[in-house]
């Protein structure tokens, strides 16, 4: 067995920090890599070592396989953890790691190829007897092909990147007229996100629930599932809120889908952490959607209800250890919800909002976990994902978890950039969400409530008073500013302009 002593984390942002935290708990040395835009990013400061790998665009840095391997070898890293996104589902990278004698913390290159290509994945699942969503058998190339498929399975359809994930390179087509621009957009995003512009088509299921199962498998043929995650609250086909258990789930369905998920993993000789994504319709029919051969952004809710550190298990599996638990040792205890905080403007079609973070107050206290990476004064780069943190709560019941999330979102303040925090708070107050009655159309169905603003006249008047005082303060005290050394930190003061009226 190879005891891992030093891990290079081939990623950035909150997921890099997440992985490094577990490494520190295991006394494993951590190596960060960074692009030109990330010299002062938190993962560089958190790691034991940090090395520059290229220019800001990820194609020149975080996707630069040879440069990353060169760094790993020169600093004697035993293993590479790819995080999620970037190279985490890149079979070539996994293969090159193997060739260079570096442990890739993830599944085998062969299974990444097989499951990473959504078309091959559908074939494998069909062979294993897992239900799949109707769609194309392979990649589509022309508009005519699309129209032909539409004739067969009907509208609406989804155009999806063959190499995709995370909502990138994905377009919904409800009408024939949208085909051209949807294919162009999906291909272009697929190309820039994954370096591969192949796309395919799936039937679009109306009122679908996106429910996925967490899988953990070792290299000795042991496979368990760690129950489901309900991920139906999405915007732009990207997850926004996840919870476990799913309010839609029954114990029978859980057992059946869990068994399917384990079989799916066994069918492809999977090892490591993985996720089987399903679509579930209102009649509780489920279809295999895709398999993610990496750690998911939403993995913390599973960690919270099962008590298992998934990154630690990934490392153990990569070392060749056997899983220390069996299916019957695993239990879902209580309820966990994750809200993703994006630097974006919910009131303006969720437009990304890069820029400098002015102040942060992170929520703390009972049942709250925050996984983030931005800090006060940090300039969020335009080059990477707009997710800045994840807020995870636990409660004994779903109601307690929702109330706690509401409280945590109330406490969470990030200024300087626009974020999704207030919008997430409105979801926690939405009666359909509270009753557990939602599907992937939740946001559009509830937009009236979700995009309305609470206002209070008194509160507005207080803002006016604050701005007024700040203004008086600045015009009144400019003379004295340069006289004394003012440490750059917050400092309460009595109003100082009293002499200036």
């Amino acid at each position: 067995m190879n005891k891992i002593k030093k891990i290079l984390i081939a990623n950035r942002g909150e997921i890099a920090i997440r992985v490094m935290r577990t490494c520190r708990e295991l006394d494993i040395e951590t190596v960060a890599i960074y692009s030109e835009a990330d010299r002062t990013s938190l993962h560089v400061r958190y790691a034991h070592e940090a090395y520059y790998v290229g220019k800001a665009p990820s194609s020149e840095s975080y996707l630069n396989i040879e440069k990353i391997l060169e760094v790993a070898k020169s600093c004697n890293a035993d293993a590479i953890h790819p995080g999620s996104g970037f190279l985490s589902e890149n079979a070539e990278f996994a293969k090159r790691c193997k060739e260079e004698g570096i442990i890739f913390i993830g599944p085998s290159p062969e299974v990444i190829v097989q499951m990473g290509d959504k078309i091959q994945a559908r074939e494998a699942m069909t062979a294993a007897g897992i239900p799949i969503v109707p769609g194309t058998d392979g990649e589509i190339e022309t508009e005519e092909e699309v129209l032909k498929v539409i004739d067969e399975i009907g509208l609406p359809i989804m155009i999806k990147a063959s190499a995709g994930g995370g909502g990138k390179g994905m377009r919904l087509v409800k009408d024939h007229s949208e085909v051209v621009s949807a294919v162009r957009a999906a291909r272009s995003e697929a190309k820039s996100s994954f370096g591969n512009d192949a796309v395919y088509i799936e039937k679009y299921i109306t009122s679908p629930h996106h429910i996925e199962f967490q899988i953990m498998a070792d290299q000795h043929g042991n496979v368990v599932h760690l129950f489901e995650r309900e991920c139906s609250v999405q915007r732009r086909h990207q997850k926004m809120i996840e919870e476990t258990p799913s309010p839609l789930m029954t114990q029978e369905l859980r057992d059946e889908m869990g068994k399917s998920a384990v079989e799916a993993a066994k069918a492809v000789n999977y090892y490591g952490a993985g996720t089987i994504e399903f679509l579930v319709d209102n009649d509780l029919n489920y279809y295999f959607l895709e398999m993610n051969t990496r750690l998911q952004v939403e993995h913390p809710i599973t960690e919270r209800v099962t008590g298992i550190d998934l990154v630690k298990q990934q490392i153990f599996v990569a070392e060749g250890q056997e899983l220390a638990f069996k299916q019957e040792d695993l239990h879902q205890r209580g309820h966990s919800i994750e809200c993703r905080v994006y630097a974006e403007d919910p009131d303006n079609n969720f437009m990304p909002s890069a820029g400098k973070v002015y102040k942060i107050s992170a929520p703390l206290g009972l049942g709250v976990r925050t996984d983030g990476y931005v800090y006060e004064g940090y300039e969020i780069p335009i080059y990477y994902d707009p997710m800045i943190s994840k807020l995870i709560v636990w409660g004994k019941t779903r109601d307690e978890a929702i109330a706690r999330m509401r409280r945590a979102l109330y406490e969470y303040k990030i200024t300087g950039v626009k974020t999704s925090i207030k919008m997430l708070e409105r979801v926690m107050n939405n009666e359909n969400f509270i009753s557990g009655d939602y599907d992937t159309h939740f946001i559009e169905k509830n937009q009236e409530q979700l995009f309305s603003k609470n206002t209070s006249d008194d509160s507005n008047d207080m803002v006016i008073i604050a701005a007024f005082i700040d203004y008086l303060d600045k015009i009144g005290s400019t003379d004295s500013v340069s006289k004394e050394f003012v440490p750059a930190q917050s400092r309460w003061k009595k109003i100082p302009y009293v002499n200036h009226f």
Partner: protein
Amino acid sequence: MAVEIKLGDRVAWVNLLSQEGNILEVEVDGKIYNVDLMHTADGTFSILNGGHSYNIELVPDAEAKKYTAYTLYDTFDVEVIDAEARYLKNRNANGAGPSDNKISSPMPGKVVNVLVNEGDEVKEGDTVVIISAMKMESEYKAPKDGTVKKVHVKAEDTVDSNQVLIELD
């Protein structure tokens, strides 16, 4: 000393009536408040109004006298309009008209593609520039029919927020 303060679409008239330490008597649009106000140099405000506790964060804009204000409920654009600001506004009003001839980027990003050249005729709704930020591409469209007067950016340029991309005639 009284000034006007713009909060979103509202313009309020505000005046400080009296002060004793951090206890202020302030008039906002004719309504009188007695508040206990403490603040930090960098814009964190704690206001007690009749016992009710309000927390406000003011983030100064690049432009003086403008702020983004964060409250429990919402985010606002705030602007203090004093005599100087009023003078400048009036002067500008006599000069160039409203700027809906300009297409600006609301946030920092990178230009993917510019679809028009100077002199091109465009129709309202035509996509003129595609900008990418944080892996998402946004299409910027002409706000009205017109002719492209000036193109300020080209593919691969990095743009700041509020930077003018295209001017129409």
